[in-house]
């Protein structure tokens, strides 16, 4: 397996595509369909080159290359992490056996389903972020948007490669289906709910890249454990790129909070809306919304499918190999908090293997908390008393045991009327959304930035903030 990427090929790759004419033809057949999709559903803003990171290698040292690229000419390619010839299955009933280089017939349908669902989320965020280029707060942010978008596109390629290479004609049909569904489409929506929500403004984009892409990180982390080695290696490399998306989210929210804190101090009032900043309670409401919608992506707390995937070795736990247990989980149990109709909570002891989604969600929540701590540190440093908080996992849920209950951000179970009466305090209101949107004016001058967000501490790849990250004319 060449570590270096074959950039002379029509489709850059490190999977020896040139040696597999059938697969090459199939992917070259899909390529124009992808380009059509990108043309229709990709970023709306026309540019003349964006300072993008392109993967040129998969090794530890220097896998990325930075340069201005005309976005439609970006070389979307197929890159898998290097193969470990000694890799063994780490969990489930096949634990200890060699990993699979081919799809076992028995698990074909399940693996295909997992890959299709993962694949379906990748183009969805591109679609959701389609219009954001028109209102970017700076060239730096605009560049990051494009970076996220092209890499989501590449992640789509990664999943499509697996479908084409390992799942025959059906895989090719599914690969095409990924381009036929569209985020928020009334006709053929994306499979998962959160990917049909609108990302209408840049605060939403930062929240999305912080919370929703972080779900992606955890899902990829579980697929990286897969016994199906090509999937594992694909996800391992995707995780490298995904880290940047979360960086965009983390620092994006940082900068919004920083700017708001600065304005609060400057004007000595929390009501900074009239000064062009985003009030902290609106940020909290955005956080509440994006966090809870992302929790839904983990699926139901108890899941037979997740258990089956685990036993079969298709999808592991986060950092499976670092866990200190038998990696089969047939004997373990853990507790699940369940809301009751009378307003109380019950704790049920259930088989651990049925609670894998909850396990992953727990890892995710802990990770999300680090961001909240970061943002609170900014407030503390500014001598402000306000603190952000992750809402209770039962709050505002559409999926799992909490759906159908009305749970406050503090975890109290209330009746529907009470909940609805406070909704405006907890979730973004129409007024909030309109207000945030009213701030979204594009700032395309070098070194300038919109009123509602602070500039980044550092530029990209050692470049200064006022570098011309995007050529617009």
């Amino acid at each position, binding site marked *: 397996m060449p570590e270096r990427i074959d950039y002379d090929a029509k489709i850059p790759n490190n999977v020896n595509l040139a040696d597999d004419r059938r697969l090459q033809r199939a992917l070259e057949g899909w390529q124009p369909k992808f380009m059509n999709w990108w043309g229709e559903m990709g970023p709306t803003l026309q540019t003349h080159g964006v300072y993008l990171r392109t993967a040129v290698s998969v090794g530890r040292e220097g896998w990325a290359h930075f340069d201005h690229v005309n976005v439609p000419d970006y070389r979307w390619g197929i890159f898998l992490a290097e193969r470990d010839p000694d890799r063994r299955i780490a969990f489930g*009933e096949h634990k200890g056996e060699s990993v699979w280089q081919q799809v076992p017939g028995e698990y074909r*349908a*399940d693996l*295909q*389903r997992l890959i299709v669902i993962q694949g379906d989320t990748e183009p969805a965020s591109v679609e959701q972020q389609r219009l954001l280029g028109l209102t970017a707060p700076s060239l730096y942010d605009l560049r990051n948007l494009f970076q996220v978008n092209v890499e989501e596109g590449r992640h789509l390629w990664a999943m499509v490669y697996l479908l084409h290479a390992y799942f025959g004609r059906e895989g090719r*049909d599914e690969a095409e*289906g990924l381009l*036929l*569904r569209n985020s928020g489409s*009334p*006709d*053929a*929506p994306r*499979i998962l709910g959160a990917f049909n929500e609108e990302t209408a403004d840049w605060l939403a984009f930062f929240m999305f890249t912080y919370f929703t892409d972080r779900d992606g990180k955890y899902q990829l982390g579980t697929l990286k454990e897969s016994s199906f080695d090509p999937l594992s290696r694909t996800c391992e490399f995707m995780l490298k790129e995904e880290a940047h998306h979360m960086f965009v989210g983390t620092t994006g929210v940082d900068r919004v909070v920083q700017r708001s804190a600065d304005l609060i101090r400057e004007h000595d009032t929390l009501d900074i809306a009239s000064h062009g900043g985003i009030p902290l309670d609106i940020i909290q409401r955005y956080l509440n919304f994006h966090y809870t919608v992302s929790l839904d992506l983990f699926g139901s707390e108890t899941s*037979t499918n*997740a*258990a*089956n995937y*685990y*036993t*079969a070795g298709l999808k592991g736990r986060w950092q499976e190999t670092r866990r200190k247990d038998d990696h089969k*989980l*047939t004997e373990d149990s853990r507790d699940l908090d369940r809301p009751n109709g009378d307003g109380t909570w019950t704790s049920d002891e259930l*088989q651990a*293997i*049925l609670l894998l989604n909850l396990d992953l969600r727990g890892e995710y929540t802990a990770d999300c908390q680090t961001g909240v701590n970061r943002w609170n540190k900014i407030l503390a440093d500014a001598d402000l008393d306000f603190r952000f908080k992750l809402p209770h996992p039962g709050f505002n849920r559409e999926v799992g045991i909490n759906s159908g209950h009305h749970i406050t951000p503090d975890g109290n179970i209330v009746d529907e009327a009470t909940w609805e009466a406070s909704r405006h305090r907890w979730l973004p209101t129409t007024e909030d959304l309109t207000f945030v949107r009213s701030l979204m004016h594009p700032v395309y001058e070098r070194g300038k930035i919109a009123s509602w967000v602070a500039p980044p501490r550092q530029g990209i790849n050692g470049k200064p903030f006022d570098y011309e990250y995007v050529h617009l004319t």
Partner: protein
Amino acid sequence: MTTTTTVTFERHPDTYRHWKLDVDGEVAWLEMDVDEQGGLVPGYELKLNSYDLGVDIEFYDATQRLRFEHPGVKAVIVTSAKDKVFCAGANIRMLASSAHEWKVNFCKFTNETRNGIEDATEFSGQRYLAAVNGSCAGGGYEIALACEKILLVDDNSSTVALPEVPLLGVLPGTGGLTRVVDKRRVRRDLADVFATRSDGVKGKTAVDWRLVDELVPRVGFRESVLARARELAAESERLPGDQGVWLTPLNPEVTDDGIKYRFVDITFDRPASLATITVRGPEGEPGDLHAEGADGWLLRLTRELDDAILRLRANETELGTWVLRTEGDPAGVLAHEQQVLGAKDWLSNEILHYYKRTLKRLDVTSRTLIALIEPGSCFAGVLLELALAADRQYILDGPPIDDEDSEERASITLSEANFGPFPMGNGLTRLQSRFYGDDDHLAWLVRERDHALTPAETVELGLVTDAPDDLDWEDEIRIALEGRASLSPDALTGMEANHRFVGPETIETKIFGRLTAWQNWIFTRPNASGPEGALRRYGTGQKAIFDRKRV
């Protein structure tokens, strides 16, 4: 789970927990909206519109009410009120935790409900359309298969699937396999691929393979479905009728010793494993069928008999022999029968088909059926079908046992009712099944219609098994019943089902005689029901362990 739940079968749309019935002119919407917490027995949640017996009892109730209470309805849309899911099929945790007889009884009842839907389409001009608005698996697809047309939402992700074989190690037992090849004429190789794929088939492929009839865009789905339903309604040959007949509650008197309805009486003899079902003839001259409505003799009797069969099947599994008796005036029976057979309106049509379906229920009931024909009984025409459905018929050749001076003698009377209107599942009348291939004998029987046949004549005509006289009667019957009760119930079930259904196969006989028989076998095999079997392991996250020997 050894359940002590007593199952009742009467429901009403006002109190449905799992369905919404909405009649809008010629079209009715029947929307499945299963209450997760509304299982008939504790111990499972009905997620994703999955169903148990309780859900299906409501479904059956709705189909019955549509036929009787809504004569104006010509098309019925079956769809789901839930987002993204049509129906996930029979609830697996319910199946896995149920006793064998509960599983089988559930399968039988659900099959009868599906057959009833096809019967409504064929004979009542009430045409069913499945509007599959989300994922549709197993028994969910089998509901769709029972409908005349299947529309699938074209959202690029919804599928139809029969995942029982790959996921559960059992068969799609509610007619799934049979309807796919026999009714929808899906090619057998494609059917094989389809039924071994746990993820099912979507979109254009589903249409190409004939698994569904048409794709309908997600936007405007309900409008498109309604338009299709209106087209079906326009083609319907439903007999005109604007005033429905309300199916009022039966209010049976239920005790430990039996069940009493107005025209049906059941007494239990538990030590002897016996239920005696006595059906009473009409009380007077036939009145106006429409004015009498649910109180008319034949309709009321049919509803009671239907309810009684279902209750006995579900709640009295150890009463292995049913003795069928009648009481009343044969002339009265024939007069009422003639009134219904003679009228060609929607209500008489419904009553006849309902009686037909109830007799079919009897035919597929896994209980020994013994008809006792005594003085004072009224086995004439429609009621004679009960005796002909039985495995054996005994007629008393002499005076009543408790009144030896009486002139009264037992008789039976053949009528038009015995020669066509009430075919069995194999498409033959009970007489044609009894004298299979013997057309001369059947022609002879036609000539013996419309007069009372003496015990001697019934023997000569081959219409009874034996005709003991009053000296032997009690002993003969006792010995016959006791002998029966001593035999293996499983062997009896197999034997009776074999004898009852002679001749040609139909979709119905294949479903009951083949598919469900296989299913019963599979249900008891370790590969499905053993502690490591697929049905038991489902939902535990652990994989089934199969005994790889093929039998």
